[in-house]
């Protein structure tokens, strides 16, 4: 727990350092910087791994789908504003839900982190549901607080508010990378327990009913190693890191409804989006939980194999999460106008 917090704090500190210089950054649809730096060269955006036409077609479909959903959202809000009856609201709720599902498929909404977390930690199905619900709630609250604070409280202009979302996103991606590093580190040191306590001290806080016969294969010198167990205390930081990035669609709808004087409709839409996200993340979390269970059943014959498998899952899963977090963090910086 402490190590996780440390990782998160480190990530936050790095971000703070990064953002300290951020005020000079310019947005394409914002004010120009006081001293205009040289225009960027027309360079290829990023290097890209080998591509397949099927994957590309899939990308294109998702892209079109998302853009259509965004358009429909605006139309439903406008229809409600003009007609004031219930039909557009129902349409809006349905589209919001679909948007939440579609958006949850994207990065930064905790799927990979959730899968890796539950792949690495023993957990009950209820834990998976709780974690997903936490992510959903955090995500909705984050969007509402963000728009509430920026547009309502500080009276930041709408165009600037859209821009400012990028900072929250960059922060979220950095946090997710931190969670990935933490999970991967658990695989390296053979941390069985998600509490990340010092090697020798006792397992305060939660009882272990299992036999302590795991052997001393990890070389840390402590008496036994508990199988990883997901506790609420360690789920909260993961859920926070995963959910803190507000849904872009939610921000857009909230700003839109705010300027139309029907903010409450935006809030409802945001909550329904989170419901969609929650369902997707919950499904992925449950798959990870049951996959892990199947793994430990299969590995019952060989303790060593099971442990090695678990450590590999932690390591690989953690590294994947770290890589995703880092990639998207990097891109968020690019979007903010940093030449990185």
């Amino acid at each position: 727990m402490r190590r996780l917090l440390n990782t998160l704090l480190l990530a936050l500190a790095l971000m703070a350092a990064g953002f300290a210089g951020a005020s000079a950054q310019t947005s394409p649809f914002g004010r120009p910087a006081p001293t205009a730096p040289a225009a960027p060269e027309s360079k290829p955006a990023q290097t890209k791994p080998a591509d397949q036409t099927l994957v590309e077609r899939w990308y294109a479909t998702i892209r079109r789908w998302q853009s259509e959903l965004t358009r429909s959202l605006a139309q439903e809000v406008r229809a409600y504003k003009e007609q004031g009856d219930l039909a557009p609201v129902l349409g809006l709720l349905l589209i919001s839900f679909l948007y939440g599902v579609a958006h949850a498929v994207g990065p930064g909404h905790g799927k990979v982190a959730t899968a890796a977390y539950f792949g690495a930690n023993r957990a009950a199905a209820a834990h998976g549901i709780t974690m997903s619900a936490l992510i959903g709630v955090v995500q909705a609250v984050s969007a509402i607080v963000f728009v509430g604070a920026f547009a309502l409280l500080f009276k930041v202009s709408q165009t600037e508010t859209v821009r400012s979302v990028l900072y929250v996103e960059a922060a979220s991606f950095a946090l997710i990378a931190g969670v990935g590093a933490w999970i991967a580190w658990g695989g390296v040191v053979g941390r069985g327990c998600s509490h990340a306590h010092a090697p020798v001290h006792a397992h305060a806080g939660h009882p272990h009913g299992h036999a302590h016969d795991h052997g001393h294969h990890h070389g840390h010198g402590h008496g036994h190693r508990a199988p990883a167990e997901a506790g609420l205390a360690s789920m909260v930081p993961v859920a926070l890191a995963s959910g803190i990035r507000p849904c872009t669609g939610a921000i857009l709808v909230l700003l839109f409804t705010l300027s139309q004087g029907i903010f409450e409709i935006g809030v409802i839409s945001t909550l329904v989006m989170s419901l969609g996200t929650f369902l997707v993340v919950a499904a992925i979390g449950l798959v990870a939980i049951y996959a892990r269970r199947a793994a430990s059943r299969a590995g019952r014959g060989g303790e060593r194999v099971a442990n090695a498998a678990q450590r590999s899952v932690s390591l690989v899963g953690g590294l994947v999460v770290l890589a995703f977090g880092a990639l998207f963090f990097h891109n968020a910086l690019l979007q903010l106008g940093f030449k990185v």
Partner: protein
Amino acid sequence: MRTLQSLLLALALIAPAAAAEAHPHIWIRATATLQFENGKITGILHEWVFDDFFSNALVSDFDKNKNKQFDPDEVKELEKNAFAALKEFGYFTHVRVGGKAVTIETVRDFAPAIQKNQVVYRFVAVLPQPVDPRTAQFDAGVYDHSYYVDVEVNPQLGVKLAGGGAEACKFAVVEDKEAPLYFGATFARRIEIRCDKN
């Protein structure tokens, strides 16, 4: 170990889905008209139609008197606060002459408008020097390489050639595999110009 394999498989399945989430915050439907003079390309007339959300943001920020149009003083404010900074981004206009990047520094005739709830930017991106597409290979892309803005140019209807000498030229829109956007979620498109030699 079989479970480990299936877990890796699951991760492999999740990965492209994650990358597939196109992640722009602003969407633009763009039309690019390549302007010719005496057979040389002098600039690109852009017409950018913004999505409903960003349009709404621009209208509520800049249509101060709420008359559903941008009056001259409002245009001035808009230009200063939501257009001028595009210079730093080369106006999303990525021109190459003979394969070498040419930076757009100058624009003219900026004219924003509100059309049926949607904001439209019209302006001309001026080439530093006119380019003869017969002697130098010319191509141009309209995109934001950070993908904060998704600029969509319709490959057929989104490109036009106009002006003296344009009739001898044709365009082709190709995907630039060298310029993936958002981890290859999509690719930048380039407008290539081919002209009859005479």
